[in-house]
């Protein structure tokens, strides 16, 4: 009899205090992030035939990438091209591109959030953080990834325009970092698989390497970050058209 009581109490306790999907998503969303970040990105793209393209980019960003400016350092063909993005809540994002050979700044727009960003396996949708209200969350279990205990969080989009039908994310139990994710297309087939490696800078867990594979195209993108500086006090006026024309030292 005592045993039954103990089991019932334990079930009650578990159901009262167990983490729900939405709570876990909230924890991930609430993670402390730097006010601004400077970094060098190396992007390596590999296509289905094993051919490789590499780019080196200097990046400044604030507000969790809502404002971002990128200068292309390599390859030589692209050196000098620069890109400025400012996201808005209530209107379309501002995106401008400096084309050094035309000596022109051109505003660009992609209404297609599903388009790939710079030929990589990441779409604009992948690069913007998910709005909590636009998804339904559930925890489908837990699993160890590289010996780290993780929750498995399933996110299903509500009525929004997206290329995905669902995402399955492996989120570390101790620090609520997404270290692995699988994203499925509208037909329920696996489309992309991601893995992320973090490093600790100051008090933040900062992405060090992102590996994205589009399994349907058999195309892979590896993004490596170095020379990372956080909270260095990037001023707001850096995100201006005139700064596109000069690569910072």
């Amino acid at each position: 009899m005592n045993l039954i009581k103990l089991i019932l109490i334990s079930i009650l306790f578990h159901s009262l205090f167990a983490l729900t999907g939405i709570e876990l998503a909230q924890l991930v969303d609430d993670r402390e992030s730097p006010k601004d970040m400077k970094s060098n990105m190396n992007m390596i793209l590999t296509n289905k035939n094993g051919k490789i393209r590499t780019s080196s980019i200097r990046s400044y960003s604030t507000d969790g990438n809502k404002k971002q400016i990128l200068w292309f350092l390599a390859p030589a063909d692209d050196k000098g091209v620069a890109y400025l993005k400012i996201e808005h809540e209530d209107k379309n994002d501002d995106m401008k591109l400096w084309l050094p050979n035309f000596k022109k700044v051109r505003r660009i727009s992609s209404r297609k959030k599903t388009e790939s960003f710079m030929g990589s396996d990441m779409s604009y949708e992948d690069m913007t953080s998910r709005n909590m209200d636009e998804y339904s969350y559930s925890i489908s279990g837990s699993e160890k990834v590289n010996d780290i205990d993780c929750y498995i969080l399933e996110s299903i989009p509500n009525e929004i325009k997206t290329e995905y039908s669902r995402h399955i994310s492996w989120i570390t139990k101790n620090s609520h970092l997404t270290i692995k994710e699988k994203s499925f297309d509208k037909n329920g087939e696996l489309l992309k698989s991601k893995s992320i490696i973090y490093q600790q800078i100051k008090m933040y867990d900062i992405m060090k390497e992102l590996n994205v594979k589009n399994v349907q195209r058999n195309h892979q993108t590896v993004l490596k970050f170095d020379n990372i500086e956080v909270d260095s006090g990037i001023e707001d006026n850096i995100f201006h058209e005139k700064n596109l024309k000069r690569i910072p030292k």
Partner: protein
Amino acid sequence: MKSWLLHQVLTHPIRLIIVNILFTMLFAYGLKWMIVDDNFMNMLPKDIESRRVWEEVETEFGSSEMMFIAFGNSGKSIYHQESFKSVWDLTELIEKSPYVDEVISISTMNRMDSNDGFMEVDDLQPNRILSVEAIQNIKIYLDKNPDVKARVIGKSGDFMSLAVRPKNNQVTMFTKDVLAVTDSLLTNYQVHYAGNSYITGVVPQIIQKDVTSLMGIGIIIMVIMLLANLRNISAVAMVMLIIMMSMVSMLGSMGWLFHLTGIEYFHFSMMNTSMPIVLLTIANSDGVHFITRFFREVRKKGNVNEAVTTSLNALFLPIFLTSLTTAMAFMTLISSPIKHMMGYGIAIAFGILWAWILSVTILPSIIVLKKWDLNSVALSQTSYLERWIERLGQKILVVPKRVLTFGVLLIFIVSFGLWKVNVEVNVIKFFKPGNPIRESSEFIDRELTGSMSLLFKSTGDMKDPNVLNDMLLIQEKAESFPQSNTSISIADVIKSMHKVVMDDDPNYETIPETRGKVNNLFTMYSMSGNSDDFNSLVDYDYETGLITSLLNSISTNESVEMVTELESFIKKNVTSKLDIKISGMVVFLRDFVDLVVRSSFISIGLSIIIIFMIAWIFFGSFRWGLLSIIPLSSAIILNFGLMGHFEVHLSHMTALLTSIIIGVGVDFAIHYIAEFRRNSRKGYTIDEVSVKTIEDVGYPILLDVASNMGFAALLFSALIPLNYMGGLMVFAMVSTSLGTLTLLATIVEIFKKNLYKK
């Protein structure tokens, strides 16, 4: 061997039947492993230069052979909400097929606009359901961009088109999947299909359907003809039994050979379609010769065993020789550039030899076992055909020189047609005028961008303005041909982007003057659009580009003219470091057809030499060797000569089918020669021997011809190659039988003094 066999037939007929049935079952067991391969692309040789270039292009840029679907209603504007809904649904459903690589339609295409200082890349059709304004907006964009419009909207504005790219050239399954979707979705529209992948996808099904039904008619006619002349159901059933047993053994042998060797050339492909018909003819011939001989002998002797003994003695050698020569002739197909023909040659040779064994074992054994009514009409009276041939033989032999002169003159006159034989293929002309497939293709040629393509593999720096300008120059030249509708390359996209980046100023619809600017345009597109959009135009390293010139259905000769002129133009006018190789299905077909025709002629020549050698060896006389090939050679000259006179083009299909002549053509001459030699040694006088020979072999030859006339049913097929197959069967039968009973018989009669008892 003959005596041993005769002993077995007369004393152990049941044992012989059981052994034959067991062997046939063993061979038929191979059917379990027989694979029907209806993918035409698998049969094309891979070691031709144009195929190599074509494959390189397809590896880098995807399949070049698209299927085109046009739907709409004549006279009714396609700019309608329902049409856009249909194209959206159609695209989504087709894309789900695992055999589809890509769908190019209004709903998958992008538009590139310069909008209030923006360079904007967006979906051409953003949603499934569009407002009237949105449709009008699309129409305005397409009117401003005629090159884009030509790819998706018909010239009269009442049809919309999609281009579907197959994955890994699995055209049969691909076509099946796509047609299943269009059949269910486009019920309210007129629908047209075209493109090489579509034609190569549907043709095997049409062939299968037509051959099955028309061959069935042919077999029924064969049975009726045999019944009318043999006037005995059991005798007809015996002939049909030999045919069926040899047929399943031949097909089973293909399964066995594939199982044992793992070589895909033993798959049953579209090329093998004529195999059952050829074997049916040969096995029928063996059976008919034996049965008619038996009837003739039993009529004379009044004893079944004696009649069987005489028949077997008389026919053992000729049936063996006809089988051996035909089998060897088919074995020459091993040298064919189409490797599947190797499997064809080996399997049919096996079938022919098995038909021979069955004809001299199981057939006499069943005859021995059956209780015959010797007073029945069939066994006691000659048939009408039999009496007719006896009269014909006498007439021919009265004026042998006149008949021979007429025959030689005919062949001489017809032979002038040999120089007029034109080697040409236009895939769409494989279908008769008025056929829905041909009409659909012609509609797409007329109203849309055309259903064929010429590919220019362009190797060079795809960011170099000089290279891009040279590509535009080649496109301009290609578009100057009346067969060409439009062309597309990365240079077109660069031109459009340049205009957009320069605020839509039409003066900038050009290639920028520096490499840096071209590179900036590529980068700009990768930031705002999807750089995958260029996958079918330029490779990952920007080192190879593809110019695709969309054409109407053209023949190989037209393609030769076009390619020669283009190559000379490129040599004279391309100044940049751009290397161009022209290919595509149409160029490949040009090379392929030449190769097949050449190798078919070599195969026919080799067959004649082999037949001559075998006849020489077995008849022990050079003269008989030479005479044995006269009817076959005459039939071949008549066939190709008449093709030349009547402007029937020689294609890879018709060249390959010519082997049918060899299959059916050699038998009669050998039977005639064997019978003449036998009669001359049996004591008939020099003046009687020819008449007696025609009486003995004329009837089975004519019955064989008559019973095979049913294959003329193939003339009713929708496919010209099948018509040719049917026509060739009839022609080969008639020409070789007449060749034997006129040319050979008169030559033998004229030179009988030199040939008697030789």
